[in-house]
């Protein structure tokens, strides 16, 4: 993005500045990368609760008698399995089976679906869905109307329940309710990107600041921290959740990214299906694998990965794991090397460092 392009701001921009956040440009959005520090914020989410402004994420609404038909055609997962109030992780795929985006599909009603999409992809996604729409359905780009807040951590439920009459404990994982939070209409989804229990709220932009402030107040007794994109990234990496532009992109398919479970080949025709069927027959050329560094070197995105002195893959995300106190990462490797216990070499700037392929997720919360 050229520097002169106008930077987009969320409705909480001023609130972040008042909290002393360090702001960065994240794919055209001015976003908080940290407040008190990435480690501090990371531990707050693992141990109690943190709140994130993720209003840069996009929202697209699909409505009409054939809304389901359109959703089924443009996404890989089976939206017919959703009841109203349920959500699923899914993907928009191109004709080669590569990711246009990874998304969450919420079923609001029989004729009404609400898609949460990545900030950097939202315009692309909207065009993609609109172009594919030859059904009796409308596609609306509604990102501007919504702020999105993520309340994550073992004390997320205790924090948020103070602000609503809704019984949040009844919302199961990957389900949502439309209820008021401090009198503000909210879509309350039990979803997240941290590997912890928690909620994502979709609220009208104009109410973002009052809700944000009240969440910080309500969470004070649990030691709530406002959290930035830095902690969001370390948390999702420990949980081995894909980040668009890193683990997944236009050239990577769900089977390669260990996301075969979001592809339902038998649900009927959908975009990308033909290429995926071919890949199922031929097998994948590369596979996403988790690794742990054996020494103190830290692998970072795009470092080369080698086996027996030959370059065989690349790091998609890497860094220190604050919870596990080890240096971890994800990488693409030919399937024969993407096996537990395999030793690989990572080219870390000026030296070579050994790493071992380990199970993912690196971190799994106790239920």
């Amino acid at each position, binding site marked *: 993005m050229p520097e002169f392009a106008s930077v987009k701001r969320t409705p909480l921009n001023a609130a972040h500045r008042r909290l002393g956040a*360090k702001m960065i440009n994240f794919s055209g959005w001015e976003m908080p*990368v*940290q407040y008190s*520090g*990435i*480690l*501090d914020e*990371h531990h707050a989410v693992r141990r109690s609760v943190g709140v994130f402004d993720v209003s840069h994420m996009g929202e697209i609404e699909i409505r009409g008698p054939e809304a389901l038909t359109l959703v089924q055609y443009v996404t890989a997962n089976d939206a017919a399995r959703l009841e109203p109030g349920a959500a699923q992780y899914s993907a928009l795929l191109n004709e080669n089976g590569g990711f246009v985006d990874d998304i969450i599909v919420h079923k609001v009603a029989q004729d009404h679906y609400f898609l949460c999409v990545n900030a950097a992809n939202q315009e692309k996604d909207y065009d993609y869905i609109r172009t594919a729409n030859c059904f009796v359905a409308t596609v609306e780009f509604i990102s501007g109307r919504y702020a999105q807040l993520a309340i994550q951590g073992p004390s997320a439920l205790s924090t948020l329940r103070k602000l609503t009459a809704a019984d949040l404990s009844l919302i199961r994982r990957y389900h949502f309710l439309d209820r008021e939070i401090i009198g503000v209409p909210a879509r309350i989804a039990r979803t997240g990107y941290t590997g912890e229990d928690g909620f994502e709220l979709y609220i009208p932009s104009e109410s973002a600041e009052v809700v944000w402030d009240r969440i910080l107040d309500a969470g004070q007794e649990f030691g709530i921290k406002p959290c930035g994109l*830095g902690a969001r*990234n*370390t948390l999702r990496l420990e949980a081995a959740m894909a980040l668009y532009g890193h683990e997944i992109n236009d050239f990577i398919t769900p089977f390669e990214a260990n996301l075969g479970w979001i592809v339902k080949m038998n649900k009927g025709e959908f975009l990308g299906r033909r290429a995926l069927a071919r890949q199922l027959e031929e097998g994948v050329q590369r596979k996403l694998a988790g690794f742990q560094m054996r020494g*103190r070197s*830290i692998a*970072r995105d795009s470092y080369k990965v080698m086996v027996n002195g030959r370059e065989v893959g690349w790091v998609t995300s890497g*860094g*220190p794991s*604050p919870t596990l106190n080890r240096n971890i990462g994800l990488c693409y490797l030919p399937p024969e090397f993407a096996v537990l216990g395999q030793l690989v070499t990572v080219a870390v*700037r000026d030296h070579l460092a050994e790493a071992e392929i380990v199970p993912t997720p690196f971190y799994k919360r106790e239920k």
Partner: protein
Amino acid sequence: MYPENFRYTKEHEWVRMEGDTGTVGITFHAQKELGDIVYVDLPKPGQHVEQGKTLGSVESVKAVSDIYAPVSGEVLEINELLADAPEKLNQDPHGEGWLIKIRLSDPRELEQLMTASEYQAYLGAEG
């Protein structure tokens, strides 16, 4: 904030002179920009470093950054404390979080560095 007896680089390192030995570190501003520091990669004693060239790197949670030598010379000592407590770089960048000691090969190089007030003006201009 920035000690008067230090000299500073545009890359946010500092050097403090005692005789012909310079103690080198990164500035308060540098550690703040880097965020939580988790690992420091330093040269070995006896190695020669050259002004403006990479002498090592600092890994924060988020990224890795090069450290540039503010002066040329031989590395006399490295701060062993940082191996187990890299967070000292965040907590006390101008004191306990020093990186290495160098015997300067050309003390005239110091003239190219900024004084505390020049560095502060530079930070102001940098934004």
